């Protein structure tokens, strides 16, 4: 089994506080790795470190080459697509403009694929992204991440704050996506995680506390207690 991304001894400091303390992680090619952990343990920090947003030390090897010293945009051009935690759509820009920003020289934009996955967006191309619902914004954000082909798709809590029906839609899309891509995602919704994960990683205090395959998710009650996530957040997925 090949690994797409290898992380060794990742230390990340934000301001004066160290968030990640020497973290090791392998993301297997063609599989979906789901990261879990209590609020504030550093899941987003891990994703942002991989993307090069945060100063960090340690080795990041992506498809055999080191990412050291590369700025964010070059890491993305190497083939890492990013769908951030709070969707981060450009609210004042139209849906079409949001998508156009994701186009890249030398890569074919896959508009048919995106509109197949999100037929709703096709109707709303001229609408500003800020006027969309949370679920629709999440779709724009995912569509941006999928528009050009990548080797690793990083998705941070795609179902956070969405209505149960929309959670279902998002999970359905990601199920389709995971068939063709390597996925690294944060997902606290255990039902959703259960549907998507091949590998599971649990973070604690800036380190890996536990890794394993999807069977970790079997003991849902225990995990839920540990993560202190409310059950009500998971309605809609079964």
């Amino acid at each position, binding site marked *: 089994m090949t690994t797409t991304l290898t992380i060794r001894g990742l230390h990340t400091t934000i301001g004066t506080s160290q968030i990640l303390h020497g973290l090791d992680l392998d993301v297997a090619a063609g599989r979906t790795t789901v990261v879990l952990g209590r609020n504030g343990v550093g899941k987003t920090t891990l994703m942002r470190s991989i*993307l090069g*947003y945060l100063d960090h030390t340690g080795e990041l090897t992506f498809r055999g080459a080191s990412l050291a010293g590369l*700025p*964010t*945009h070059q890491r*993305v*051009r190497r083939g890492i697509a*990013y769908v*951030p935690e709070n969707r*981060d759509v*450009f*609210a*004042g*820009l139209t849906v079409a*403009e949001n998508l*156009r*920003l*994701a186009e*890249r020289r030398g890569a074919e934009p896959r508009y048919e694929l995106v509109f197949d996955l999100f037929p709703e967006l096709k109707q709303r191309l001229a609408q500003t992204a800020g006027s969309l619902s949370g679920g629709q914004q999440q779709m724009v954000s995912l569509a*941006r991440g999928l528009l050009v082909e990548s080797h690793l798709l990083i998705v941070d809590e795609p179902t956070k704050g969405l209505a149960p029906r929309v959670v279902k839609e998002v999970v359905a899309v990601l199920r389709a996506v995971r068939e063709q891509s390597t996925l690294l995602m944060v997902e606290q919704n255990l039902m959703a995680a259960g549907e998507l994960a091949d590998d599971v990683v649990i973070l604690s205090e800036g380190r890996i506390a536990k890794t394993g395959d999807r069977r970790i998710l079997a003991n849902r009650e225990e995990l839920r207690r540990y993560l202190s996530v409310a059950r009500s957040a998971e309605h809609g997925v079964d």
Partner: protein
Amino acid sequence: MDTFFLILATGLSVGALYYLLASGLSLIFGLMDVLSFAHGALLTFSAYSAIMTMNWFGAASTGALLAAIVVSTLVGGAVAFLVEWLFLRPMYARGHLSQLLVTMGIGLVLIAAVTIGFGPDPRSMPLPDNVSGSIDVFGVLIPVSALVTVAAALLLHAGLMAFLRRTRHGLIVRAGVENADMVRGLGIDVAKSFAMVFTIGGLAAGLAGALALVYVRAGTPHLGDTYLIYAFIVIVIGGIGSLPGTLIAAALVGLSQQFANHYLTGGAGDLLVLALLALMLLARPQGLFGKTGRIV
């Protein structure tokens, strides 16, 4: 009645000068989070290149003035390009304070260069007669200089809006004003846009330098200082990163200032502008056209 229109014209042309400086600053700040204190000095520095150009031509012809305006604009752009490349770029990772000090340092050096080259006393700008006079517009005498500055500001606005709305670079700038990090996350090198926007701001400041001379007719090493301050006020009132807001605020500030100075008492205009600013902050901290939630 004539005075009223005259003041209207001066108010608008002062506002136009504010806009020329503020539009660039607003984009620079919106995109890069850099507040450039060098732009006042950039205006001054370019203005002196306009004076030099006029003197080089000898005769104050319209052609010479046009050449001076072009030279001034290009000097502003070139200096801004170099400043961004050599001094600002190493500072992006270092936060506001360092960037601010760098632009302040550059500002001091530019002004000192002007003082060393031309002395601290005012240098007059020779103007062709057809520009220093007034023309009859529907029965009202309007100074040509006012028409020139207002036209320049409107042209710049139209040009910038077209750039922002119709080009990919413009799209990147608009997205970057909202969230530069996310633009990077889509594989785009925002630093290139930074350089471009800073240079555009420099070009606009250079244009403002020449046109400020058309309006005040003499340059001093501190020509740009007051314009810079009012440009800041205009940016805040208009809403940071919004050019239409900046345009309206520039006109508003220019007009209030000139009308109050004339009809109330000298200096009342400055206080009125300040009152406008305070009122705006109390009622709408994000400015006229600024987005809520993005109060920078």
